[in-house]
């Protein structure tokens, strides 16, 4: 046995950049272990607090990584399979925050729905670990594994509300379609492997720089298949159809994680592969992303305005947002990447906040997600309504919210890449989408409240989460510079391990 190891080149594993990954995944396992051993002796809030602590731990460990990268430059770890760059750290931070906020939101929800137990949090953290892997993967197989980790955990999370038939319906739909799309993605990886002989994005990038593969059918077909997989994950039209059903059926806190975290991880992986690996072939894939963006913007906005279920409305709006982010992807520039990162961070906040509000409003059984349940909310819970309004207006891209800057950055990137018409179409779609946010606002503020509507119980966790995201939305809406700066620095550059 020893001889085997002696002959193999053991990669020099740099532990520091991997600590966020390990903390996230490890915390899940530790939580599972603790709960299994300690069982019912633990207080009800334990898992939630543990998860938040793990998220904070990830944040804390991400900081040294960021500093190190900014000093030494981006590099790779574990035999070039994990990219250590500010891009991945940015996404890690977004995912960690998503986990923390989702844990805050979920605590009260799980109590209310009698779904207590560590399983939710374990799966949440494992899923986030998968997301982190996706965002940092420099190897297509690692990326695929990360995606599967992320997805499998979410399949379970979606279906875990066993008393709700919708939850399981959503779960099976998501699962079947997810597996279907994964198969395409995997086929794409195989084709890319066939064309380039490598699964490593850094190598692929190098190969594409050195030799002209722009008319290699395998590579092009592989890109197409990969786009199917990523398009599914980020809910881009025409791979979006699962989104409304799953968002509506899934437990609300899970949706906030999906909208914020899964989307962020999906886009991170997409950028890593297409902007990082296939950056040299941007001419080939840009038009496709262009098409996906327009289709997502149009379909998302148009379908959203005819819905009556708030979760469904927001699901379609998330499709529209995906279209917007694709605009930034389409730019295929560093600015475009920065804009996507900014957008993801902003959207994460808005989405978590919005679904947190829905979590509260939906009431026992997670049933009250219709537009009706929001009628007159302003009269019953003015602060909650105001907070939701801020988040909705932010999603609509109204100034002095972070959502405005997200759109601003994306459009800037598109314009800078001379995609003028895409920018125009995106803004037109934003106007159509604004209507749907207004519909919700109208319901809350301008419709008379139902006199029989029950007084909502607002647990501290979700309230805190909503406060945080609203403050985030407003503060960075007024002064977005810090996050813009971070996003600008979070350049995606694929580098071999070269640091000392």
């Amino acid at each position: 046995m020893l001889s085997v190891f002696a002959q193999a080149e053991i990669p020099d594993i740099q532990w520091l950049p991997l600590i966020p990954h390990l903390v996230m995944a490890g915390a899940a396992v530790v939580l599972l272990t603790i709960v299994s051993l300690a069982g019912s002796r633990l207080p009800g809030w334990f898992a939630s607090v543990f998860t938040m602590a793990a998220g904070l731990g990830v944040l804390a460990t991400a900081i040294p990584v960021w500093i190190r990268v900014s000093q030494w430059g981006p590099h790779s770890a574990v035999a070039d399979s994990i990219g250590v760059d500010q891009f991945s750290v940015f996404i890690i931070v977004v995912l960690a925050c998503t986990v923390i906020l989702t844990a805050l939101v979920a605590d009260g929800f799980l109590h209310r729905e009698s779904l207590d137990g560590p399983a939710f949090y374990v799966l949440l953290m494992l899923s986030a670990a998968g997301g982190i892997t996706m965002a940092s993967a420099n190897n297509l197989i690692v990326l695929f594994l990360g995606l599967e980790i992320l997805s499998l955990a979410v399949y379970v999370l979606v279906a875990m509300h066993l008393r709700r038939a919708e939850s399981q319906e959503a779960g099976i739909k998501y699962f079947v379609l997810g597996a279907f799309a994964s198969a395409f993605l995997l086929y794409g990886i195989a084709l890319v492997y066939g064309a380039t002989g490598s699964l490593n994005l850094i190598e692929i990038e190098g190969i594409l720089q050195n030799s002209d593969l722009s008319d290699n059918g395998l590579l092009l077909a592989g890109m197409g298949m990969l786009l199917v997989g990523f398009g599914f994950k980020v809910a881009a039209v025409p791979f979006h159809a699962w989104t409304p059903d799953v968002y509506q059926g899934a437990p609300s806190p899970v949706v906030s994680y999906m909208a914020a975290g899964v989307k962020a991880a999906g886009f991170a992986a997409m950028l890593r592969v297409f902007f990082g690996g296939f950056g040299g072939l941007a001419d080939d894939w840009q038009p496709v992303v262009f098409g996906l963006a327009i289709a997502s913007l149009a379909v998302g906005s148009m379908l959203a305005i005819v819905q009556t279920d708030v979760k469904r409305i927001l699901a379609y709006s998330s499709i529209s947002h995906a279209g917007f982010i694709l605009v930034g992807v389409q730019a295929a520039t560093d600015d475009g990447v920065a804009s996507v990162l900014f957008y993801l961070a902003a959207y994460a906040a808005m989405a978590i906040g919005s679904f947190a509000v829905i979590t509260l409003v939906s009431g026992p059984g997670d049933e009250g997600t219709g537009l009706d349940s929001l009628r007159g909310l302003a009269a019953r819970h003015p602060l909650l309504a105001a907070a939701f309004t801020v988040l909705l207006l932010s999603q609509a891209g109204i100034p002095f919210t972070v959502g405005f800057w997200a759109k601003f950055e994306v459009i800037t990137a598109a314009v800078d890449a001379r995609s003028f018409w895409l920018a125009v179409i995106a803004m037109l779609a934003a106007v159509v989408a604004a209507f749907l946010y207004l519909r919700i606002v109208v319901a809350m503020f301008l419709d008379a409240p139902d006199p029989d509507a029950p007084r909502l119980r607002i647990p501290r966790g979700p309230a805190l989460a909503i406060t945080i995201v609203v403050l985030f939305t407003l503060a960075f809406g007024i002064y977005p510079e810090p996050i813009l700066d971070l996003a600008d620095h979070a350049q995606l550059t694929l580098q071999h391990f070269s640091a000392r």
Partner: protein
Amino acid sequence: METAVFIVCAAIVLAGALGVVLARNPVHAALSLVGTLFGMAVLFLNLEAHFLAAVQIIVYAGAIVVLFLFVIMLLGVDRLEDLSVEPITGQRVLAGIVGLGTFGLAVAFLVTSDIGLPGQEALTGPITDQYSNLRQIADVLFTDYVYAFEATAALLTISVVGAVVMSRRIARADQAQEAPESQEAARDD
């Protein structure tokens, strides 16, 4: 020889696949799947992937298909599916067109393109006769792919946790609403 094995196995694989798609009885479908998997394993051998051929049999035929059959038996979902009707209008026609499209396009891509770059050396690790197939895989698996390998742990944890979560016995909806605070019941995993 290789040709003959290929032709036979290809036939088995395709027949099994068609069996999965066309069998009215889920059990038959599962058995057809075994055929495909078996044919596939032989093809793997043909392609000198000995380790994977073995794993294919063990994991797929031995574990996965058994799991399928187990679930079929457990749930009693072996009811025959009426394949003569298609409730969704146009689904089959479109599926056929899509199938033809996928296949046609894939073939077009596959047969017209070069695999790899001329003169390129193996980037992950060369396939040699020096070591066994198992050894070669292991070398790569525990070095370059060690992160991925560890990641599979998470995958398996998820499937375990997921299976447990999904198979919990949960109080009926009406009861749960009466006693929403009965949280201890769910905390027994």
